[in-house]
């Protein structure tokens, strides 16, 4: 199992992501954004969190033109699995690999805390180790995490089971920290091989550090 992790100027979660996947037994490789290829034996490509290109213009907007992104699109088009976390989610929406867009948080503040999430759909590689309705506790750390999609787009997400996670309280009741449409924290594409979420499962790997709920989430990719 080989996990390739993208690194843009301003990415800052690549080593956390590497640590998380290596803890789970995967082999990893960090791929610099100037590379025009991703390693051939890649089983999962992760677009890690951070502030690519200083979030200039819009979060993720400049990164989508990095040389490596053509390879990412080609990999995804061939059915390769791609996971975007936080800024990686923003990059994937900007690149058109995932529907919707991430706006400034409704309260205009940067939010950094643990937050509960409820599994909306588990008929996909990412969340297959969890059950629909399970509540996990995972850190969020973002300024532009306010997911937007128009009504027609939202209906399509619902019909195709593309909504992965919703922000809730510990009991699984909707609790929306940032104004996201339908309290959405993560989505996947129609083909269910490209995944994006604002919360950081790679930061929830050890109960000593607050939660190990990220293990069950990321493990989905390892055992497929």
């Amino acid at each position, binding site marked *: 199992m080989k996990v390739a992790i993208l690194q843009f100027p301003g990415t800052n979660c690549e080593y956390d992501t590497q640590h998380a996947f290596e803890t789970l037994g995967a082999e990893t490789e960090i791929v610099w954004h100037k590379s025009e290829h991703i390693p051939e034996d890649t089983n999962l490509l992760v677009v890690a969190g951070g502030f690519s290109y200083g979030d200039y213009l819009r979060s993720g907007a400049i990164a989508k033109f990095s040389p490596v992104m053509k390879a990412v699109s080609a990999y995804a088009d061939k059915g390769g699995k791609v996971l975007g976390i936080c800024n990686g989610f923003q990059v994937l929406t900007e690149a058109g690999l995932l529907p919707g867009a991430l706006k400034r948080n*409704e309260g*205009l503040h940067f939010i950094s805390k643990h937050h509960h999430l409820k599994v909306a759909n588990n008929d996909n590689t990412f969340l297959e180790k969890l059950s629909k309705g399970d509540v996990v506790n995972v850190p969020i750390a973002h300024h532009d995490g306010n997911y*937007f999609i128009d009504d027609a787009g939202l209906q399509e997400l619902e019909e195709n089971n593309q909504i992965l996670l919703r922000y809730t309280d510990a009991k699984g009741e909707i609790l929306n920290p940032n104004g996201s449409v339908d309290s959405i924290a993560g989505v996947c594409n129609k083909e269910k091989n490209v995944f994006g979420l604002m919360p950081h499962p790679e930061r929830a790997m050890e109960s000593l550090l607050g939660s190990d709920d990220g293990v069950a989430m990321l493990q989905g990719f390892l055992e497929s």
Partner: protein
Amino acid sequence: MTAIVNISLKQGVLDSQGKAVHHALDSLKFTNVTDVRVGKQIVLQLDTEDKTQAMADVTKMCEEILANTVIEDYKIELH
């Protein structure tokens, strides 16, 4: 030629910054403001005098990178 691109959130997309500014104006007793939208302006210097070409070029720039048309509208002025 100068191109001025004004980018703002689409009508129907909640503009939290606009709302916060509106609230602040209200606190300062500017009570006749009915709506506030906050956007951004990008000024481009173009090496052409051909307005049709310039409009086509800048429109392409807006569609590809300057605006995210999922949530934003843009207006282009040429001078």
